[in-house]
């Protein structure tokens, strides 16, 4: 204690201070290394090996797992690209709706009187709190062909029962619908925050110029919330890319393999076939595609903004 006060030990004190400061970061750093950094490196390592859990040796095979995935004659090729195609379909069907309806609800809530706004905001946000397995099971029940609530009402109105989960395009509609019900609230909340940041003065100026509500939306609201829009598009794309629980539980990949998304294929390959090497290679490729898509979305949004201003 006494030495620390001596002026001669300034360098020593600085070192001590750095050390005690480092202790603040250390616990997180350790968990970060153990459960993010090491898995990352280990994943690359596994993808370079013939890593079948059932065999006793897992030899190094270089990029052969990747080559197999890109070899059009191999079963891995169709597993990866069919799965990727189904995942992309889900992304394309769901993201525009998740973004536009999310924004629509935010606009609707913003035009309601204060108390009602809070009330409805809570109701629209509730499903976000529920787990994907509960959501999927509720919708399995509601969409049941023979005794589901939706078909009961349709038949009551004189329509035929619709095979919501066993025929296309209904299976996609069901998966996208359940997903919208489940996650829409989050996007809505983010848009509400964004709309509150749009300055009243701009709207007033617009009103003086005689702009209609639609013109104000296009020329004032949209440009102002563009960064948030980008954020919502990117996070919704990533979330939809990771889709797993809904098709796993609601359609089990069917009808046929039409909703067997890539992540389901990877999980199946790793835990049923125990082919961890190829599965890891696929997981890495999938992540790479996700990162590239995010970066492209970011670039496009930024370029547009630059072009206009």
């Amino acid at each position, binding site marked *: 204690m006494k030495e620390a006060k001596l002026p001669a030990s300034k360098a020593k004190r600085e070192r001590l201070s750095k050390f005690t400061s480092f202790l603040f*970061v250390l616990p997180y750093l350790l968990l970060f290394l153990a459960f993010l950094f090491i898995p990352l490196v280990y994943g690359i390592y596994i993808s370079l090996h013939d890593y079948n859990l059932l065999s006793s040796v897992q030899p190094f095979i270089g990029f052969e797992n990747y080559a197999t995935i890109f070899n059009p004659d191999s079963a891995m090729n169709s597993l990866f690209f069919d799965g990727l195609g189904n995942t992309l379909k889900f992304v394309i069907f769901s993201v525009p709706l998740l973004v536009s309806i999310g924004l629509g609800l935010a606009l609707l809530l913003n035009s309601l009187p204060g108390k009602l706004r809070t009330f409805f905001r809570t109701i629209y946000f509730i499903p976000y709190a529920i787990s994907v397995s509960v959501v999927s099971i509720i919708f399995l029940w509601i969409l049941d062909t023979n005794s589901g609530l939706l078909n009961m009402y349709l038949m009551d109105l004189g329509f035929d029962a619709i095979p919501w989960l066993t025929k296309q395009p209904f299976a996609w509609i069901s998966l996208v619908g359940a997903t919208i019900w489940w996650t829409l609230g989050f996007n809505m909340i983010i848009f509400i925050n964004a709309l509150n940041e749009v300055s009243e003065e701009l709207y007033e100026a617009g009103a003086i110029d005689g702009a209609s509500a639609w013109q104000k939306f296009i020329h004032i609201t949209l440009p102002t919330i563009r960064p948030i829009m980008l954020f919502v598009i990117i996070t919704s794309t990533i979330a939809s890319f990771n889709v797993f629980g809904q098709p796993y539980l609601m359609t089990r990949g069917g009808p046929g393999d039409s909703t067997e998304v890539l992540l389901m294929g990877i999980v199946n390959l790793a835990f049923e076939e125990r082919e961890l090497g190829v599965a890891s290679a696929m997981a890495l490729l999938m992540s790479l595609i996700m990162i590239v898509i995010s970066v492209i979305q970011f670039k496009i949004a930024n370029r547009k903004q630059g072009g206009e201003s």
Partner: protein
Amino acid sequence: MKKNGKQIGLIVLASVIGLLFLIPLAWMISTSFKNDFEAIAGGLNWIPENFTFENYLYTLTGEGVDVPIFRWMFNSLFAGLTGTAIIVTIDALAAYGLARLDVPFKKFLFPMFISTLMIPFVITFLPMYMQFSNFGLLNTYAVLIFPYTANAFGVFLLYQFFRSFPKELEEAAKLDGANKWQIFIKIVIPSAKPIIWTLAIFSFMGIYNDFLWPLVATNSPDMRTITTGIAIMQQGSFTSSYGKLMALTTIATIPILIVFLIGQKQLIKGITQSGIK
């Protein structure tokens, strides 16, 4: 007059949409009080004709089938609470250190942490499974807790808060002879309470509701979480017993709904503060 009419139209629209959001949950609760026959026979009776608690008794007492639902609930709550406590503690420490203290290599550490926000879970879940498997730790609480603690989201969230925290308060305490640790506990943490609660609610919901990871990382019935447990039941012995399934999902939803409704305001405030603007 015209404005009033428009206002009423909007309220009606908002109410119809509200119904769409509530119907699935209301139907879940309604079905959970019907016997299997009444549920399957269909019909649109929202109030069960033969109101019964048998589904709850059956699933809660595990009569006939082995459904350790209390154990699953405990697993989920325990993993959620412990994980959240760890996340909040280590993230607050790290974020404060990086934002305010003379941590060596922080110019390198912070970007390294933040860049992992881009990394999807898909990359790490297979190797992480192998890591736990190699150490024989599958089907333990470690597997249900630690993988969530590495996420950099909380560090990012709190870092931004600590950056904008007024320096004067810390300096006044320093003059009074307080060390870093005391400043952190007595001054910084109390002022960061709202944002820490936000992180806690996000983390708890994330762990409690996660599906893919506990599905692949546990397979003993005793170590299932409630979300994976009910999914297994749906694919197993409860397949078309919708009354029982709805009782299970209702039970699984109650705790998270309570956390959500209590923490909702904080959650929304947190989303605003998290730099998403």
